[in-house]
């Protein structure tokens, strides 16, 4: 009998005072005992709300039942029927907004720790050699390109390979994974986990190519001459800045640059690696999303005196994943709410010397229902800072649209899609952050899966 009233297992974590000095994973994998105890709490609801609220429909009660029987290999196969990146999702999905947020146990006993169980299943099955590469259908002889190698493209590539198509993933950078590789730090998502998940997609017969910037190295039209269809998931690009004076001062980073230096280029190992990073004494991160949390926690690990996150609304409106905010606080990151930066101050050498800010109070809700920050008159003050990281969102990558005249865009510069996920170029579909302008791994994957199904249908029509 399930026993939901047992305490929720949260697993062990590296001690904050230790982990704030390293880039090793914070959360430790469940032990078998912890996993079994947690699996025991699941009620295996019919019409499970957790499953209904998973954007890719992971069969949650069913996989947890297999964990309980100690059949981790089968449990993993069950997850992989709908999600090809379980070790990643188990670590980075905002479970509190999807599965766990809808668990019937949530109010009374605390939700089942579905994220940690997913991760346990994926890591354990892989380690014990129980992962079965998904079976692919008979080759169709059709070739499909996936542009970018972020989660959206990986999901599409795997699903297309499963349908028997010959898939090539083209990545502009020298390493695969998109934001998983250059944005999300190794202490949340170890590099080996990304490598392993990509190996699985490779084992399904997908070819991966680095250093190909579609639109520049090869035009979309040229690709379509060689291939039957394409999925464009080139993610976000061109980081938005604040548009306030002083943003080009030395010591101001966009979150993308800061995180790319640390995560993709491994600047934290400099001079063993060649790309440097400059960290000051007082770091201020502007923003309140996942990028802001990652930037703040990476900065902390580079050893400054203080790291502050300055956010323009209050704690309740912060879009970052709850666990990241908690972890950041444990590691000593200070949060300063209801703050709007007005100007980045510079010393005589053009280096950051502080941020002129104003205080806000919360006003009426905006279109999304979040209460709008309203400036308090006369509240100006200076936040001391010598490194500033601007983490205020993402804009869609413009390269594909710019270099492909056949692709129409909306007035916001986003590729125009019809209700079938089709671009204006026949055979080319698009999804993920390039369309959503900054969402989640899961939503990006969902777009990839849906596009793969549509491409299958399109190819079956014999085009």
């Amino acid at each position, binding site marked *: 009998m399930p026993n939901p009233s047992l305490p929720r297992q949260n697993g062990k974590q590296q001690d904050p005072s230790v982990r704030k000095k390293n880039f090793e994973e914070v959360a430790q994998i469940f032990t078998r005992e912890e996993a079994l105890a947690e699996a025991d709490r699941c009620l295996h609801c019919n019409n499970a709300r957790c499953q209904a609220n998973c954007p890719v429909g992971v069969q949650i009660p069913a996989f947890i039942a297999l964990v309980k029987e100690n059949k981790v290999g089968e449990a993993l196969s069950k997850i992989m029927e709908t999600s090809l990146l379980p070790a990643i999702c188990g670590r980075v999905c905002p479970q509190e907004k999807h599965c766990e947020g809808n668990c019937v146990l949530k109010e009374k006993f605390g939700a089942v720790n579905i994220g940690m169980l997913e991760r346990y299943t994926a890591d354990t099955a892989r380690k014990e050699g129980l992962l079965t590469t998904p079976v692919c259908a008979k080759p169709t002889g059709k070739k499909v390109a996936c542009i970018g190698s972020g989660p959206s493209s990986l999901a599409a590539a795997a699903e297309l390979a499963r349908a028997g198509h010959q898939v090539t993933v083209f990545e502009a950078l020298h390493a695969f994974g998109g934001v998983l590789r250059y944005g999300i730090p190794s202490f949340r998502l170890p590099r080996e986990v990304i490598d392993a998940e990509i190996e699985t997609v490779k084992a399904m017969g997908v070819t991966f190519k680095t250093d190909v*910037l579609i639109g520049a*190295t090869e035009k979309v039209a040229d690709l379509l001459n060689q291939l039957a269809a394409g999925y464009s998931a080139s993610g976000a690009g061109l980081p938005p800045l604040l548009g306030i004076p002083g943003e*080009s001062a030395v010591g101001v980073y966009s979150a993308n640059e800061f995180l790319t230096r640390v995560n993709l280029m491994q600047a934290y190992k400099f001079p063993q690696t060649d790309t440097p990073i400059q960290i000051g004494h007082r770091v201020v991160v502007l923003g309140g999303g996942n990028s802001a949390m990652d930037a703040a926690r990476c900065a902390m690990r580079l050893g400054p005196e203080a790291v502050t996150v300055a956010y323009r609304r209050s704690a309740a409106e912060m879009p970052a994943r709850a666990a990241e905010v908690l972890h950041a606080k444990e590691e000593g990151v200070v949060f300063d709410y209801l703050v709007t930066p007005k100007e980045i101050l510079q010393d005589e050498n053009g280096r950051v010397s502080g941020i002129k800010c104003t205080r806000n109070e919360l006003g009426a809700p905006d279109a999304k229902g979040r209460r709008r920050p309203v400036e308090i008159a006369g509240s100006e003050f200076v936040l001391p800072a010598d490194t500033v990281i601007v983490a205020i969102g993402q804009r869609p990558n413009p390269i594909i649209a710019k270099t492909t005249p056949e692709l129409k865009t909306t007035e916001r510069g986003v590729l125009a899609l019809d209700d079938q996920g089709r671009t204006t170029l026949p055979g080319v579909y698009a999804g993920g952050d390039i369309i959503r302008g900054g969402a989640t791994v899961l939503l990006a994957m969902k777009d990839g899966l849906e596009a793969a199904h549509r491409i299958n249908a399109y190819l079956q029509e014999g085009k």
Partner: protein
Amino acid sequence: MEENTILVKESLNSAVVKFVIYKPLIAKSARAGQFVILRGREGGERVPVTLVDWDANNGTITVIIQAIGKSTCLFNSLKQGEKFLNVAGPLGTPVEIKNYGTVAVVGGGVGIAEVYPIARALKEAGNRVIAVLGARTKELLILEREMTALCDKTVCATDDGSHGLKGMVTDALQALHDGGEKIDAGFVIGPIPMMKFTSRLMEKLGTVSYASLNPIMLDGTGMCGCCRVTVEGKVRFACVEGPMFPARTIDFDELIRRTGEYKPLEKQSLQAFEKDHVCKCGLH
């Protein structure tokens, strides 16, 4: 043949090396003013260098690299037959090639190599092309023969007077002007102060000037914002919107500050590298 293989390596002087690299896709799509990003080893930096030449038939591209720091010293120690780890491109917006009338292409140091493909494209578009080449000393002045063969007129200037005019490229441009040359447009590539003063002079002489900027870059695909420069008071990303911009309104002083950001760390990196390698670039 494997991609990224070095087919030809040739030293142009003690610090500057020319590489011909096998990279068919880039050879097919390259245009004047674009660049590639190179990496030499695992853990290596992503370093932007200009596409100096390309040959779609043979699938090759040519780059010319001056050793000034760790990564460029590492590149220049690669041998013929070895491979670059990564070669990505072509990146950046090509220079607008049309008939401007009489144009000056101005190169300083390794900038001479960078401006060469632009000179060639401008010549093909029917311009009268004057090359103005500058270097500290004769030994460092590269591609004079190629430029002379290509351009309608070529003038050289060296700081120490060991070749051509004694002085800077600005002195050479002033001399051309004083000699009655009316130059409609100028394309300048070289050290930042040289670009700053050259474009100022050009505006004074009634020449519309363009400068190719070399901010620090990371991804080179418009994702990170590291390469931002201020032109006409607006933030522009040099790796996608440049590297060539109308020079009159470029904030060169900001660019100098921003490219100096990592100087102490770069020095540390180079010293660590030199402990293991004997650097043959002669500059250190």
